[in-house]
């Protein structure tokens, strides 16, 4: 690991939700949110704040406190409440420089819109799918963004900002029962409005999606037979037989550069 200069100054708030175990369906800490808390702990230590809107009686919330944090601000709201205004109000009252969240919730609609709506409402920039925050200096942060295929990209963003934390971020630490019990769950009642749009929606168990069949658009029986039996083949690639090894290697290198995999 390169040595990372951690500035104790940034005020970090992490938005946490209640997760759902994929097999048993039990409530747990959400995986991406836990990684966000881990990143918050790295950035601000125990000064990192936790914010939750929703059911405050859920015991799984104490899993986040069990990661070694003293307090979780739990804003009591009904199951059909809109969380974004309450969060925005909370962040106005208790300002933060960096707001971290997971990408999507593990239950419910899971649209992943909360960070976007929050950033839009606060007028802050949003960085999606980050893997790490490297430095925070002079009001700008160097953020490492996770790309598909294990690649990383360095972004520079001005504070304050909202960031969603990718699965590529460092693994969340184990939570302990004792600190989770001792941590303070600061419950306050949030002034929320009912999410009117969602009233008419129907929730149902997920239907298995039909598997897409490989439709063969062959006209004749011979073509269909060939499509069913033929080995996968490219569309007539270029073959270099003659020439020196140097020329052959150069041909490969040209393709690699054209594809952008070699810089």
């Amino acid at each position, binding site marked *: 690991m390169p040595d990372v200069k951690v500035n104790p100054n940034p005020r970090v708030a992490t938005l946490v939700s209640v997760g759902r175990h994929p097999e048993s369906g039990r409530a747990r800490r959400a995986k991406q949110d836990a990684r966000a808390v881990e990143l918050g702990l790295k950035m601000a230590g125990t000064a990192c704040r936790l914010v939750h809107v929703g059911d405050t009686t859920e015991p799984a919330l104490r899993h986040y406190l069990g990661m070694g944090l003293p307090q979780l601000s739990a804003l009591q709201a009904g199951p059909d409440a809109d969380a974004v205004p309450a969060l925005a109000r909370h962040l106005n009252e208790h300002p933060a420089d960096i707001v971290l969240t997971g990408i999507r919730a593990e239950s419910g609609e899971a649209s992943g819109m909360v960070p976007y709506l929050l950033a839009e409402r606060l007028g802050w920039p949003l960085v999606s799918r980050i893997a790490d925050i490297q430095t925070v200096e002079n009001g700008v942060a160097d953020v490492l963004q996770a790309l598909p295929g294990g690649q990383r990209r360095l972004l520079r963003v001005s504070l304050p900002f909202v960031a969603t934390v990718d699965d590529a971020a460092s693994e969340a630490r184990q939570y302990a029962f004792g600190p989770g019990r001792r941590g303070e769950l600061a419950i306050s009642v949030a002034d929320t409005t009912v999410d009117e749009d969602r009233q008419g929606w129907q929730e149902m168990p997920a239907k298995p999606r039909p598997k897409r069949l490989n439709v063969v658009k062959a006209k004749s029986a011979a073509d269909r037979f060939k499509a069913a039996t033929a080995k996968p083949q*490219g569309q007539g690639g270029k073959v270099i037989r003659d020439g020196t090894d140097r020329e052959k290697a150069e041909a490969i290198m040209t393709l690699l550069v054209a594809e952008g995999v070699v810089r």
Partner: protein
Amino acid sequence: MSDIVRRDVRIEWIRRNRLHPQHNELASAPGPTRGPTGLLRRLPHNVGFIGPNGIRRIDRGAGAQGGAGGLGARALSHSAQTAPLLLHHVEQPDFYVAVVVDIAAGRLSSHDRDVLGQAHRLVRIHADDGQGAVVAIVLGDVREAAFDTAGVDRLIHLTEVNRQPLTGYCPELKLAVLQAVDSELAPRYWLFPDSIHGGADLGARLAARLGERPAVQAWQVDAGQTLCRGGSQHTDWQRPTSRVMLLAEECALAVGETRHEARPIELAAIPQVSPQIQDRGPVEVDPGKIALSQAEFILAAGNGIQDWDQFHQVATALGATEGASRVAVDDGNMPRSRQVGATGTWVTARVYIAAGISGAIQHLQGIRQCDKVVAINLDGGCDMIKRADLSVIGDSRAILAELLALACARRGRSGPGTAPIEGSQEDRHVA
């Protein structure tokens, strides 16, 4: 040419007469036989050829050895001249359906094509309101993309906005373009692929900016209702169809039967924005740490590799993730976790270099989703050559040595970025 079919009676006579000196050369290339009335005659006994065991074989696929006027030849000529696709023409669109494609790595992905197919489904559903046009918004550089066959009626392609290039991560600039499109064309629907290549991010940004509630992970969309996958894939939400939709993979069938105009549209003005996020470029990651199934660039070795140290050096110099065929793993030259193929890992690399791999069917299955395959092999007739986009016939050791020299030269020119050779050495477990 006149329609009268003229028979050459003399040649027909020679063909019948096996004792004629010219019989062999004329009988071997019979051509179409005409009956006395000019009808085309087909001799069923001439179809196919006699196989080595004396049994008549009919090869309908290849058609090469099929007899005169045989089925094989006819089928071949049929499939060879594929009819040009019908052009779908939209002169004055009454409404637009906007699709923002990912163009990951400069190409239309299958997800992009499915979303374009869904856009055409929505156009057909709303056919009562007049003729709709699918407008594709392409932001960034395009390498190869058949927009016309993918179903793009109108195309907005921008590589820079107000002299700021649209490369890398620039969601704020892209959002400004989408807002300009929204105010100019007022599309009835905004469709995005719900993908990690930026579609989900951009769609959520636009929905938040427009104040629309998006349908996320939508997989069944019609005029009134939409089915969306909920959290952890364990619920479905049925909800009214919204204006902004982030579509899941395989949401609809891609366009395949028609050709489209892909007529470019110029936007009048795009407002100036000052981005708060600055892209500082990609960061080098240790290719050995990337999981094989996720790696973008793989250098794989097979039976044809003898010099394994050289192979590892080339992979490090090119910055490629290492892969191996089953033979190389069984011989103990590479760890099992690096095996590519049906029994190993199914890879999705953009570029896959197969050095000394002849291409067993299990291996070819494993690399089916790779975009570009490069083969280095001594055998010019192996199956990997048929699959590859670029094949180089020659000794892999000599070609890899040249490739290593080229990669080192590039590295030396591009800057002081030295290869992280140490560290990955102990990972190279030998079974």
